[in-house]
């Protein structure tokens, strides 16, 4: 069964006239994995990319720098993200070219698409991998962050092909430019639209959506803030500092805030600010996976053992809410003791 499958396929998402950062990261991952399989099994392991939408010719050309083959499906029904049709196109290409590994970026659309394709292909899918390896059997080992404890779990898909995975973005540095001289192939895929799902409107989220990812300073709050009033104080402080606010999952669970776009970590945002200030955050792997690329880390926590403190450049052992209130007071009072 395995012999019939070969190579690595990446679903690449475009953004504007270029590629999403996640697409370049995935291509980087794919190249490393392909080299490992190649060395282990002494066989050619082609890396290919799939890009959908008639408007994406330029990103498709960019992809040829990273992949041996770029399959570009330019049907006009694929202009806007349509889960059923997108999954149909990708599934069709997987069945046609039979890659042994298929990779997606773990965003809202990538996760939905990967799950749909895996169900149609009746194969295994791991979610939000933070590390990928090839074991000595030549199988993909997908490392995911386990819930609660600071444990990583390996996930394998030993007997089904392709092995599918969504990869947490922002873990690997994306290659700046590709050196491959790939072939761009226009794909005619038979898309069966049963008409049960139709697109009616598209609306940009505006700058707010990327605020957290693009911010130079992020002020993040966790369960240690204790209540909504303290969360609102943190927002006030962020405003005074010109920082973006972010949160951990318990803050959403407690309904101190309802905007999921503010969540940092696995199944949330990966951020790379120059300064990250975390208040009342213990530092579970789910959260810290999203701040690996932060420059300076300042952490405030009562518990000297908190993992986030261990990761921080400046560790403040004290009461988060009280310190937030005091910082606001100092700024508003113009108390410049420096």
């Amino acid at each position, binding site marked *: 069964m395995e012999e019939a499958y070969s190579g690595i396929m990446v679903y690449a998402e475009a953004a504007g006239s270029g590629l999403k950062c996640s697409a370049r990261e995935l291509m980087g991952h794919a190249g490393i994995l392909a080299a490992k399989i190649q060395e282990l099994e002494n066989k050619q392991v082609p890396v290919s990319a799939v890009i959908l939408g008639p408007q994406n010719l330029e990103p498709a050309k960019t992809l040829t720098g990273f992949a041996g083959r770029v399959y570009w499906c330019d049907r006009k029904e694929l202009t*806007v993200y349509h*889960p*059923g049709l997108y999954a149909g196109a990708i599934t069709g290409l997987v069945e046609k070219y039979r890659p042994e590994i298929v990779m997606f970026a773990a*965003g*809202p*659309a990538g996760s*939905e698409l990967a799950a749909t394709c*895996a*169900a149609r292909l*009746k*194969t295994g*899918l791991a*979610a*939000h991998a933070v590390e990928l390896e090839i074991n000595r059997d030549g199988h993909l*080992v997908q490392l995911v*962050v*386990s*819930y*609660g*404890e*600071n*444990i*990583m*779990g*390996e996930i394998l*898909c030993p007997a089904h092909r392709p092995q599918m995975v969504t990869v947490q973005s922002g873990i690997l540095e994306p290659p700046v430019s590709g050196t491959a001289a790939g072939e761009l192939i226009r794909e005619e895929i038979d898309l069966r639209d049963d008409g*049960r*799902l*139709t*697109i*009616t*409107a*598209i609306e940009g*989220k505006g700058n707010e959506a990327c605020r957290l990812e693009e911010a130079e*300073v992020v002020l993040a709050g966790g369960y240690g803030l204790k209540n909504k009033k303290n969360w609102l104080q943190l927002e006030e402080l962020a405003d*005074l*500092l*010109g920082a973006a606010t972010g949160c951990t999952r318990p803050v*959403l669970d407690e309904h101190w805030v*309802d*905007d*999921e776009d503010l969540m940092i970590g*696995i199944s949330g945002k990966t951020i790379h600010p120059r300064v990250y200030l975390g208040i009342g955050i213990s530092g579970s*792997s789910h959260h810290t996976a999203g701040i690996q690329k932060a420059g*300076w*880390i*300042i952490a405030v926590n009562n518990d000297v053992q908190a993992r986030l*403190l*261990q*990761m921080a*450049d*400046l*560790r*403040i052992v*004290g009461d988060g809410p009280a310190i937030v209130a005091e910082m606001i007071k*100092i*700024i508003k*009072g*113009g108390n410049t003791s*420096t």
Partner: protein
Amino acid sequence: MNIYVVVKPVPDPKTKLTYDPEQKTVIRAGLATVINPPDKNALETGLRLREQSGGRVTVFSLAPPSAGESLKETLAMGADEVYLVSDPVFAGSDTLITALILARAISAIGVPDLVLAGDRTTDSGTSHVPAQLGEWLGLPHLANACEIVLRDQKNLAVKTSLDEVFISYRVTLPAVVSVTRRINRPRLATLLEMVRSRSKPVTLLDAAALNLSPEQTGLNASPTKPGRLLPARPVVKEGTIMSGTVGEMAQEILNRLQSLGYGPKAGGGLG
């Protein structure tokens, strides 16, 4: 309108987890659980649609029998009945097989007009199950819904939230839709409703009831298998530790921000 809501009891965030060294999964039996928070948003969506158009809201949950107690909360919030899909042979199922079992349970009771779910769970958090459930049922499905409006008896308008855009769809019922937390604020069950919910039915559906053989479910049937469990390797820095009065600590942070070039923005006291 006949609505099913798929919910998952997840470990109470305030309890400590233990792992089964054989199955390499969290031991769920006897674990204190709460309803996965986004699933409550899905239930709230269902309850509001029922208020608007009549019908029933039925909860389905694939969980160990011990989770029955936390499912009572869905009845107290207003669900009409609960099906607890549970069998020891289901243990260790991955998302594909979990979705298969849920699809069988839903088909056994009768495919409704709409199946709702939370878009991700707070434990494993794959967000795969709703889409895969839609595939097993052969129904159109959408994830990341932040707004749902019933247009007529046959069509739903669904707005979804992606990275940079909102995309709206019209979907023909029956369909499967998973919702984000921003869709609504779930109601709180009152004490009286908690008491009343005791008389509402919780029906068990096991493998036999769903005509599922042991080979079709559980870890053995699942394409993905857990491998080793490894300790996370956090980045540990040689940071400066500081403690003192609240005033001193607040000032230290502000000083540090300023030395990095990020003082309070114009209009603030520092500059």
